[in-house]
């Protein structure tokens, strides 16, 4: 313990503090997510072709490095001759928009119900939690297909469906947090000071569960994107000809056996990278924002 290297100069408090916060920062996942977001944002500028218009004479062109491929279509073309790269670029936009808005819808519903359930307790808690239990008992994907069959496929409907399917996870986690927050002295002080319940929930409970909601949101982003892709793959998600990664995999699957591998593998790779990155970021955030894991 007593042996310290004299050559190592201790970093200043300021720099140590700023680096400490970034400890274990998932650089690569964040870069991937930023790239996808950037591509989604500037799809019109980046995509070389219109993603919805193809040239039938140029169908099933392989990527440029394979024989028969050309630099004109870097990642090849699909069954109606649409440029695969352009479709992947516009597909990123669909995944981003659907993923983020669906997580926000689920998060808002779940957080509000979780706070009401945890704070008010009694019959409110019983009703909300029994509904959540019944909800969880249904397999998420089957339930989503069922809802999609009722309301019909569209991007907006997909967002609502995913929000309606996944709010239960938020509600349960947030309710648990609220139950422990309720016992905290500052909440009791607010009660003793005569604050009405809605003021306590809004001012003292909600700001203290936002951290958990954000962490859960990043973790849920992956789940939601996969579900969206699955629904699109099954034909009840984003309606064609809009390019969505799940839909592109579905379209490409009949070509898989005859060697048109790029039509399924490339969108699949995109989904995998995005989901993995979102989960790694979520894991890091959880450790950073959770005071128990932060070991203060």
């Amino acid at each position, binding site marked *: 313990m007593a042996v310290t290297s004299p050559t190592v100069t201790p970093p200043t408090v300021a720099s140590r503090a700023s680096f400490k916060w970034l400890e274990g920062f998932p650089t690569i996942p964040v870069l991937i997510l930023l790239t996808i977001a950037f591509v989604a944002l500037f799809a019109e500028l980046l995509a070389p072709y219109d993603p919805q218009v193809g040239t039938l004479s140029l169908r099933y062109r392989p990527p440029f490095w394979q024989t028969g491929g050309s630099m004109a279509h870097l990642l090849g073309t699909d069954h109606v001759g649409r440029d695969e790269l352009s479709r992947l670029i516009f597909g990123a936009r669909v995944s981003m928009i659907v993923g983020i808005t669906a997580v926000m819808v689920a998060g808002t519903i779940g957080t509000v119900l979780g706070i009401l359930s945890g704070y008010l307790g*009694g019959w409110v808690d019983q009703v909300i939690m029994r509904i959540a239990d019944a909800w969880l008992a249904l397999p998420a994907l089957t339930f989503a297909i069922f809802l999609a069959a009722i309301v019909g496929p569209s991007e907006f409907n997909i967002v609502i469906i995913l929000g309606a399917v996944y709010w239960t996870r938020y509600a349960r986690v947030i309710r648990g947090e609220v139950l422990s927050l309720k016992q*905290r*002295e*500052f909440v*009791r*002080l*607010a*009660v*003793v*000071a*005569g*604050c*009405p319940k809605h*003021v306590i929930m809004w*001012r*003292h409970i909600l*700001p*203290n569960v936002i951290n958990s909601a954000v962490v859960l949101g990043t973790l849920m982003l992956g789940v939601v994107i996969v579900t969206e892709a699955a629904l699109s793959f099954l034909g009840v998600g984003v309606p064609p000809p809009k390019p969505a990664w799940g839909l592109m995999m579905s379209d490409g699957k009949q070509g898989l056996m005859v060697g048109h591998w790029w039509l399924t593998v490339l969108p699949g790779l995109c989904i995998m990278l995005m989901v993995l990155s979102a989960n790694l970021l979520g894991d890091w955030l959880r450790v950073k924002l959770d005071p128990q894991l932060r070991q203060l």
Partner: protein
Amino acid sequence: MSQPLLSLEGVSTHYVSQQGTRVVRAVDDVTLSLGAGETLGIVGESGSGKSTLALTLMRLLPPAARIVSGRMMFEGEDLLTKSDGEMRQVRGKRIAMILQDPMASLNPLFSIGNQVGEPIRVHEHASSSSAWQRAVRLLKSVRIASPETRVSQFPHEMSGGMRQRIVGAIGISCEPRLLIADEPTTSLDLTIQAQYLNLLRDLQREHGLALIFITHNLGIVAKMCDQLAVMYAGRMVEHGPVSRIFSAPAHPYTKALLGSIPRMADGGERLTAIDGQPPDLANLPPGCAFAPRCPAVTTRCRAEAPPQFTLEPGRGARCWLAEPLSMRSSAA
């Protein structure tokens, strides 16, 4: 004392188990009164019903607890007949409370000014800016140095003693008539304790507050309080002016409590403790609850619970030994 600020008459609070089979008499037939500007100390062992009594006063009992009887008159109104909404108007505005752990009583996410001003905004519907101005003045009155800068800081930037004083400022923010302090100094070290107690005394004098001090520290009672109520197993076994009780305790339990304070002068003597354990509140002995531990127990004590004997105006005890001294028996 024409009309006391607060008077409790035969208040009982029971915890009832879900099946209704077990009844815990946490507060049993408590009668006491407190004048404006007076200080009442409530002492007793853990589980003697002190905190439940405080929560009864605020009507903030957990769902399993019921106030089964009694009247609680506060400024001429019975608190037990008020609706929940009316009661919320009382809490924080006319009766304020300082909790057991003031260190954790501040929300880490809001600035000090925001939290000190909260009761003012809630009860007086003051604007944020005027509540903020009031918060600065309140911080000054609890002797926070440079309140103008402190008011916009956050709880983690404060020391323990400062946070404690800020909680005190929240307590007096709406100029309440009664402040209940539930063991407010247990989490503080001794020098800060003394400072805080002095501060409470000064605030009491300046604002004409009545103070109820719940503690198990008789030293604090001697320093702070005019009146003392001793609780044992949910009952108030003795009450009266502090000086009278300290000089001549009537109840053996009070005697034992006073005897268990360590004294420097005692030299090598062993500390006296009270033998035995406090009784199970769900299964009280038929007679006096203190009988199994009482050094002066008689057969009557085991068979029959003693009523409240009035020894002199404002002083009473629940003990058969006090009967010969009581005013009622001398009048009879």
